[in-house]
């Protein structure tokens, strides 16, 4: 046992050290700008003040959170019934269904987002078809709207919602439902009072898995959102690549981290809890 300990501990320590130094960057960036000297410190604080006073940044943060929340909500609405049906389908069909959910996830995310651009464009596939059938005369404006942005994000992050929910629902003890039904609950009552509370950790893990990356999403707003949709990931990108204002970009990032730290902690807590439950 001692051998085992030494044997596993040593490589582990190496990993620990590496991941420490890697993850430190997230905090590091903070120090980096601060540690450059007193002068930098002043400029830095100036940046924070600027962000606090400028309405545009405030609005951008707000709309990022709004879009992320809408996306999370829609994902949950689509994914919950889906995961539920999947968990209740015959056991021999489940691996194939799981495979089908995972497969788009394996193919390039960038290309899938690009595909929506093609479908939704003014002279895109949907508009051309609708005009061809005679449904509409003028092409509908779908690209570069909040609609296309949310659609793209729902599409991209849907598997991230389905998988934790499915993993949670498939483990559920069906006898609990039978007991509830025996005790006179209607199926709907049984669902609300047994199934939903039991899948709480799956719901939260899935929601955080969708919400947090959505807040900082850059690629999807850039390709599908058009210039009017404000997303903080894009602001950061522009500050960095177009304006070359690195301290400003760092400030935007620090504020973004502060925004997502609560959901992040929630995610880690439920992640830890669900693994603990698997273990026991």
């Amino acid at each position, binding site marked *: 046992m001692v051998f*085992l300990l030494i044997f596993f501990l040593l490589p582990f320590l190496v990993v620990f050290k590496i991941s420490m130094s890697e993850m430190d960057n997230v905090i590091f960036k903070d120090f980096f700008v601060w540690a450059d000297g007193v002068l930098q410190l002043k400029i830095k604080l100036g940046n924070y003040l600027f962000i606090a006073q400028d309405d545009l940044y405030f609005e951008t943060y707000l709309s990022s959170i709004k879009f992320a929340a809408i996306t999370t909500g829609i994902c949950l609405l689509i994914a919950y019934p889906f995961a539920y049906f999947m968990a209740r389908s015959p056991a021999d069909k489940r691996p194939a269904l799981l495979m089908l959910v995972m497969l788009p996830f394996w*193919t*390039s995310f960038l290309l899938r987002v690009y595909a929506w651009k*093609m*479908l939704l464009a003014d002279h895109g*596939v949907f508009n051309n078809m609708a005009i061809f059938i005679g449904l509409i005369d003028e092409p509908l404006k779908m690209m570069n709207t909040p609609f296309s942005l949310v659609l793209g994000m729902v599409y991209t992050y849907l598997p991230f919602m389905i998988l934790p929910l499915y993993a949670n629902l498939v483990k559920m003890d069906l006898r609990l439902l039978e007991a509830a039904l025996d005790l006179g609950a209607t199926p709907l009552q049984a669902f609300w009072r047994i199934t939903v509370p039991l899948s709480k950790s799956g719901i939260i893990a899935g929601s955080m898995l969708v919400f947090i990356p959505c807040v900082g999403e850059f690629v999807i707003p850039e390709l599908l959102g058009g210039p009017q949709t404000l997303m903080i990931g894009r602001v*950061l990108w522009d500050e960095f690549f177009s304006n070359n204002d*690195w301290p400003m970009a760092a400030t935007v*990032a620090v504020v973004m981290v502060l925004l997502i730290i609560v959901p992040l902690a929630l995610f880690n807590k439920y992640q*830890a809890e669900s693994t603990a439950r698997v273990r026991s």
Partner: protein
Amino acid sequence: MKLNAGRATSFVWMGLVFAFLYLPILTLILLSFNASPMVTSWGGWSLRWYEALAKDSEIIAGAKLSLEIAFLTACASVVLGTLAALALTRFKRFPGRTLFAGMVNSPLVMPEVIIGLSLLLMLVSVQRAFGFPDRGLMTIWFGHTLLGMAYATVVVQSRLQEMSPQLEEAAQDLGCRPWQVFFLVTLPLISQAIGSAWLLTFTLSLDDVVLSAFLSGPGSTTMPIVIFSRARLGLSPSVNTVATLTVLVVGIGVVLASFLIARNERKRALEMAAAYKASGN
């Protein structure tokens, strides 16, 4: 009757979700054979965009670099991820465990722009201090491995948790040294998880735009960056052909791999049943 209605709803719902997931990919594939230079209006079947792609040196160079990075990333992430997963499952309690678990998990959800920016700022300050490393393949590899390691850890960890510790204990009782236990018992048992983690991190790295954009230097443009900059400007037929080829390769690879895994699993189940029978249980 009621049950049938429920099943019908479930079929319809699942069908709709799958249609939603696959429709864009199928459109991409179909339109890559479009003869017309207008991407979205159909002009008959043609392979002309594939011919154009074969001559597109920018994309080909990007693809080479991307594959190289993806290969290195997958190997490094799997090794680091396996070690982290072992540490997390074997040692229930050690100082800083929560911190460590949190650090391993957070790249999964942390927005990539933040990871990219902070990695870059760190690399720049390191470079200023030591004159090393230059931005390029190395730094992209580093960033992708950070992300890939998190995914690999989760995949391997879930397999390790399912595994019965008795198998390792039995090997120890039978006189195996710790390294023998690891290489003869643990490693074969988690090899499938390691395989799928490798594939996952490989595709992840092959696909990444944001980290690469932050970490790449002049002369190290990966394929996703090329595609992204073209897609940003508008619709381009060359992107469709690249998409079709990637979907094809990845699709075949994944289906093949999962088929092999399923077959091995079945074989192992049969062998286990045979072993039980032989031992007279």
